[in-house]
């Protein structure tokens, strides 16, 4: 009884330590606050947005920012602020789900390769080398072209294109742990390979994975927005920041506010994720901090 309780306390205290260290880092906390706000915006978009994201008002096209339209209106008279608010849903969804896809697939490949080693590892990692040889954005473009442009396909494309990075990371972490004594002990006690990987190895290499995943969400949002920007991602009239930028681009000479605000939204999101990622790196592994 007592030992179980102690174990729980210890587990808690590790994360408490991380939180304590993270809390001291003002930039990281700032990033975290922005991300929480973004989530709230995405969840309560229906209440926050003053207008619908698709209601057109042809009498009020190209309005510059005013009290009625905080960020102005676009070429169809749609309220840009409302579209950005709804756009946060899409960006967060795409970012997190894409990273989830690459984490699950890439992580499994990396864990299997790192744990078993030998031929299997060789085969899996050579496959990853092949994927790595194609720049992420080109691979994502090719996948989206094959599957057709839609939100789900965009997530799949962005997710698949960053699989090799996670596979390599998890493999390296697993390899550094698999020879340790407690793994041998678990094996001697008769744990199955699956149990050893999931229960003993992965929890011990979470730190780099969490950091990579946080920054990975930022990269996924950027890639997805980039694809939408060149017209291969999310199609109008869905309010997506990248496609809003691409729409505003034609009017940049006369109505720069159309490109300004979606870009700011995107940059703040990415910056917040990067700040949090950097902070987590320092908090999870104090040795790395210089």
């Amino acid at each position, binding site marked *: 009884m007592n030992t179980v309780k102690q174990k729980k306390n210890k587990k808690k205290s590790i994360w408490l330590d991380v939180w304590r260290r993270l809390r001291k880092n003002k930039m990281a906390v700032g990033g975290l606050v922005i991300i929480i706000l973004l989530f709230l915006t995405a969840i309560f978009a229906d209440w926050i947005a003053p207008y619908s994201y698709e209601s057109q008002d042809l009498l009020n096209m190209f309005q510059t920012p005013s009290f009625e339209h905080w960020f102005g209106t676009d070429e169809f008279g749609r309220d840009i602020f409302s579209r950005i608010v709804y756009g946060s849903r899409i960006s967060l969804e795409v970012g997190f789900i894409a990273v989830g896809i690459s984490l699950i697939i890439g992580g499994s490949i990396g864990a299997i390769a790192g744990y078993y080693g030998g031929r299997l590892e060789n085969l899996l990692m050579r496959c990853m080398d092949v994927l790595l040889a194609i720049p992420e*954005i080109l691979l994502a473009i090719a996948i989206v072209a094959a599957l057709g442009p839609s939100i789900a396909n965009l997530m799949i494309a962005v997710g698949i294109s960053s699989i090799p990075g996670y596979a390599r990371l998890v493999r390296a972490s697993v390899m550094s742990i698999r020879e340790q004594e407690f793994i041998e002990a678990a094996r001697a006690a008769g744990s199955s390979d699956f149990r050893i990987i999931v229960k003993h190895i992965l929890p011990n290499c979470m730190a780099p994975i969490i950091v990579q995943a946080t920054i990975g969400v930022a990269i996924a949002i950027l890639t997805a927005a980039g694809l939408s920007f060149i017209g291969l991602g999310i199609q109008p009239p869905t309010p997506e920041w990248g496609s809003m930028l691409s729409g505003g681009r034609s009017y940049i000479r006369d109505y720069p506010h159309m490109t300004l605000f979606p870009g700011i939204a995107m940059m703040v999101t990415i910056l917040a994720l990067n700040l949090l990622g950097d902070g987590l790196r320092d908090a999870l592994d104090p040795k790395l901090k210089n």
Partner: protein
Amino acid sequence: MLKYFARRILMLIPVILGVAFIVFFLLYITPGDPARIILGDQATEESVLQLREEMGLNDPFFVRFGKYAYNLVVNQDVGKSYVTKRPVWDEIMTVFPATLKLAGSSILLALLIGIPIGIISAIKQYSIFDNVTMLFALIGISMPVFWLGLLLILLFSVKLGWLPSSGYTTLNAMILPAVALGAQSIAIITRMTRSSMLEVIRMDYIRMARSKGQDENKVVFKHALGNALIPIITIAGLQFGRLLGGAVLTESIFSIPGIGRLMVESIKMRDFPVVQGGVLFVAISFSLVNLLVDLLYAYVDPRIKSQYK
């Protein structure tokens, strides 16, 4: 050394074949009938069917890929564009110089700005300069390249009228695209230089050099930088490879006819051979750049050089 180089080149072949397979498969499942694309909407059903037969489009997937791979390896031939009917290699070679110029100037910019600033930041750790630099570096990493490009056009072409908003032939026209594409690399190389220098500066041999009264400049540039260069070279090489294939967005914003734009146009027009050839070409150049980076290590670090022998 030569043996190592030859082995690495040979190891590229399966990777390239793998890339060819992936792209071939992706385009295989992409909707759109190549025969119909070549002949246009006006063509009769019979002529489309006939062309399908001639092109071997009715063969099973693996037979088609086998033929493609055979042509690729034995004849170094990747077919002709459906749209322009020119060989794919020719298409790529017409647009590659623009991409190379763009990526080259971006990485040059990144090295010229990133390394000195990174060094100063490391020497003056936690100073105002360091803090401001790190903040800018973080903003640089977070800036979507296509948004930065638009902002640069807005400021320097539309408002101030100093620089052209498109083109790539003159030096003036290259400035904005190179800055837009290079911004992220500048930030990454600055951060890398700083952390790598910080790590090295604490080593015993630096303390040794200082304590024997070595000139501080010499300590920084010879003893420290020389040893801090390896991660910087790695990251610069990776960045250059990424820029070669990832300039899609920059090329689209500044209307530069480079390889990225060719790929996007070809995908939109379902010009499959060009897409295939383009991805292959980018993958090959990416792998070659990585190989060159590995070779460069040997020149920077005698410890690595001795391993090759």
